[in-house]
């Protein structure tokens, strides 16, 4: 089967700093992968590379069959990225933010309502400005905007940060549901114990390269150099 993410000896520069060096990894459809490593290891850069937001300096790579060197912009509409920041507009209400991102993603109003319902955003929170929400609530809204987008690849950077126990369980269930529906999920986390998923593959990166890969669900195809 063609891998959804195929990176071979990839190198990414942030300015002149090589944030990823000689990184090789494969990911298949429906897989859940935890990318762990210390601060500055290159986890977020890896997610941004897979999202098509960063250019590759060396190596080869493709995401969903799109070449990351020549077609990285084509990758973007198929990817949902939850970064350290939420990507929301602080002066708009939860409803307005959801409405904007749903319309921009060509999602229906019903999809929007269903995503809000799923993330517990209906009712009291709908008319509240995002600036007045707690960090955890903002995280939920941001996740809801991803759900409404229905991406083929979920790229989640510390998705459990600032969430309470209920929120973390909700995120885990969303990830499992997305994976069952065929989406590939990459989760960057330096606190792996916070990720409560059982069926997961763990890739450890340090200094911009993969240092270990459990490759549990991927077999031989998954071996990492």
């Amino acid at each position, binding site marked *: 089967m063609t891998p959804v993410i195929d990176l071979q000896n990839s190198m990414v520069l942030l300015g002149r700093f090589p944030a990823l060096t000689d990184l090789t990894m494969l990911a298949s459809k429906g897989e859940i992968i935890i990318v762990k490593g210390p601060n500055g290891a290159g986890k977020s850069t890896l997610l941004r590379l897979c999202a098509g*937001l960063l250019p590759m300096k060396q190596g080869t790579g493709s995401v969903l069959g799109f070449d990351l060197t020549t077609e990285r912009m084509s990758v973007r509409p198929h990817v*949902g990225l939850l970064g350290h920041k939420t990507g929301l507009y602080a002066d*708009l209400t939860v409803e307005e933010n959801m409405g904007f*991102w749903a319309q921009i993603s060509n999602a229906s109003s019903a999809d929007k309502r269903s995503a809000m319902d799923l993330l517990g955003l209906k009712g009291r929170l709908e008319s509240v400005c995002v600036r007045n929400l707690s960090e955890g609530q903002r995280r939920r809204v941001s996740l809801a905007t991803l759900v409404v987008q229905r991406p083929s690849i979920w790229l989640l950077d510390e998705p459990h940060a600032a969430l309470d126990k209920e929120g973390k369980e909700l995120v885990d269930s969303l990830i499992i549901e997305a994976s069952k529906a065929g989406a590939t999920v990459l989760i960057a986390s330096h606190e792996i114990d916070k990720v409560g998923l059982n069926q997961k593959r763990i890739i450890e990166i340090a200094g911009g390269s993969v240092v270990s890969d459990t490759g549990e669900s991927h077999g031989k195809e998954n071996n990492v150099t």
Partner: protein
Amino acid sequence: MLRDAWLIAQKDLRIEIRSRIITNQIAPYTLLILVLFGFALDADIETLRDTGPGLFWVSILLVAILAIQRAVDIENSDSAQDRLLLSPVSSFSIYIGKTLGLFLQLLLLEVLMMIAMIALFDSSVDDFLLVSATGVIATIAIASTGTLYGVLATGLGVRETLLPILLLPVLAPVVIGATRAFGDAFGRVNADGWAWVGLLSVVAVLYTLLGMLAYGQLLEEA
């Protein structure tokens, strides 16, 4: 494509209405500039009337810089720009949407400032159509250039300080043309205002086309 642009413009306008920065901070700043010019030029009403068109457009440029920085901040403060890049929306639509939002805000400020100028300087408009055409076309040039340079300055990482230095020289032809056309419309200079509007139109079209071509690449770098 135009639907996406309108969604972005609508979103920016909604944010401005909600935050009230335009009405509570930028509009009073605009009026303050006019009043201070009045003090600086003494109470010589004829001097104020003669220099009024120039003061108007210099003041508009100053407040435009604030509005442009604000439009850039809306996308950057919580990385919404990344989300836009990941959405199916083209960079062309983002550019048109941001320019349209800025254009409407600046137009509102110009109307307020015009009323204030007429009231404070006791000016009278001889050719209302010329004033309207000049205002709309010059504002298109300012908004299209401002949107482009806002994202350019973001990419260079020194937005607040560098933006005016980059932007003001590029907009010098707009200020000159708009001041001459306004001077004619207010009956203060002997110039062919419509010829200046023609020149402004060429500048506005060129700057908008340049913006459409360059914005996507600059957004990637930002």
